[in-house]
């Protein structure tokens, strides 16, 4: 058996000074960052009024609440809750579909390979960015001011906030599309609309369908949230029952939401595979 030759440390050191003697800035960067992050964390704890006593009383309170939640029991309001759940699912489905329909034409304006001019694309993109910067809950509050309390405000809130997200995602999908089909259409004498209809859309529609399904799924969650500010659905019931401390009903409602979300997850992942086939799911 042969022995490995012993490395000549001195020679290696001379050859690769960067490996053996890293500059102080590189060596200290990591610890300095960790200390900095911890310092901000501690400052945050102090500034946000964290105290052990508060934490302990809160925890015992929480434990008590959890005890009160068992067993989950809807009382006599089960039909009402089922109706509210249906309302929530309706809000998610309708809001997402409307958003997708509105976002498709706008996303064409934001895609580089459709509109080469920066003059249109830039303002459209910033517009979509600002819509996305505002949370769904805030849109819900605004729409409640406009169309009044109820699920319709929720539909419109989801529609507006998803419009921003879809605009961006769709335009990215369009930019990632293959140029060759578009060029083929142009070569055979098609105009700009033909290029979009027969060159781009067949490529991007499956991607878009996958994204829309994914959003319907995640909007089931958003739709439960916006009920809390008064935009209908199961969130409204949940917020009310929390406020009146009916913990058994609260836990039942949470359970209902969990089951509904899991069911929608299951259905939409099946559908997505059916639409996109064996390709990777976005």
């Amino acid at each position, binding site marked *: 058996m042969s022995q490995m030759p012993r490395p000549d440390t001195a020679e290696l050191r001379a050859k690769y000074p960067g490996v053996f003697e890293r500059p102080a800035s590189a060596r200290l960067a990591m610890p300095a960052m960790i200390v900095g*992050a911890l310092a*901000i*964390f501690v*400052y*945050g*704890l102090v*500034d*946000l*009024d*964290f105290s052990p006593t*508060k*934490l302990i009383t*809160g*925890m015992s*309170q*929480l434990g008590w*609440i959890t005890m009160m939640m068992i067993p989950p029991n809807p009382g006599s309001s089960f039909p009402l809750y089922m109706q509210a759940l*249906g*309302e929530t*699912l*309706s*809000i998610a*489905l*309708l809001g997402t*579909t409307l958003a997708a329909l509105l976002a498709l034409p706008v996303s064409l304006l934001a895609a580089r390979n459709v509109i080469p001019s920066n003059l249109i694309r830039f303002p459209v993109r910033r517009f979509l*960015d600002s819509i996305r*910067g*505002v*949370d769904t*809950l*805030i849109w819900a*509050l*605004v*729409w409640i*001011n*406009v*169309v*009044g309390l*109820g*699920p*319709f405000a*929720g*539909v*419109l809130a989801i529609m507006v906030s998803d419009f921003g997200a879809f605009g961006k995602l769709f335009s990215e999908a369009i930019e990632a599309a293959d140029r060759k089909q578009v060029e083929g259409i142009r070569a055979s004498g098609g105009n700009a609309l033909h290029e979009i209809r027969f060159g781009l859309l067949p490529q991007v529609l499956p991607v878009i369908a996958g994204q829309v399904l994914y959003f319907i799924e995640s909007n089931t*969650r*958003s739709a*439960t*949230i916006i009920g*809390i*500010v008064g935009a*209908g659905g199961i969130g409204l019931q*949940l*917020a009310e029952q*929390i406020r009146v*401390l009916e913990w058994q009903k609260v836990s039942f409602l*949470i359970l209902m*939401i*969990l089951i509904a*979300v*899991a069911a929608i997850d299951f259905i939409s992942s099946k559908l997505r595979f059916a639409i996109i086939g064996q390709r990777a799911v976005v």
Partner: protein
Amino acid sequence: MATAISILPAQQLATLNDAYRKAVARKRLKATVAAAVFCAALFVAALGADVNLHTFFTYFGNFLSYFDRILTLDSGARVWTDPLEWFWGLKKWLRLLGETLLISYVGTLTGAVFAFALNFFAAQNTSPGPWVRFIVRRLLEFARTVPGIVFALIFVIAFGLGPMAGVLAIAIHTTGALGKLFAEIVENADMKPVEGIRSTGASWLSCMRFAILPQVSAGYASYALLRFEINVREASVMGFVGAGGIGQELVVAIRKFYYSDVSAILVTIIVTVFIIDISTGWLRGRLFGKETRR
């Protein structure tokens, strides 16, 4: 120069055309049925969600004029003519925004630490046992699926009004979301280093520390930064239920129709979110640009 294209004899062509038409017709039928089912679902949903087009068109003007109103000062002038008057409460709002950022920072860090502690148990290749994995996975799923603001509502009752409820709500939701992502990174890690370390007689803990952690830490930090971005948005609405931050001020302004305040607060929130997005994006590029480029 004209080129003659040979055309198949009519009989052959007819069979081919026939087959083509059949294939297209089957596809069309499928698409039509799918569209019909979808439209029916939409119709049912529209009934369920009380969609009232009449209300919509009557009040749609209100939506547009709402933006007109929030961009008008009490004096009737446009907001940008008098920025000092528009941003009269800037000092207070900036303090609340700072609180919002702190809530999301502390919440993200706490959540990331818990996710870090749990993810090795949730990943298929490193979990010490299937039942541990099952329990941890269900826990993370629960924390992820229940919306953060629902936790906040409950915590406000348990811990009292204030930012602490917001921090805890964000921390729990972050634990669920990051725990899943972290576990996925671990599942993609190379298992050879683990075997190497185990062959030296090391414990499970040492295997994780010296074989897995060096491979995954960059991905962890990257996801945690991304989560921080998301949590800033989430923290900005925690105030709606009394869990601290700028949301409280915003909801009061919207509900009491302090129009110009609404736009001013929204602008400060949007600008802050932009700044955070850009700076974390820059930081991620700086820190992990080289490592994550595969």
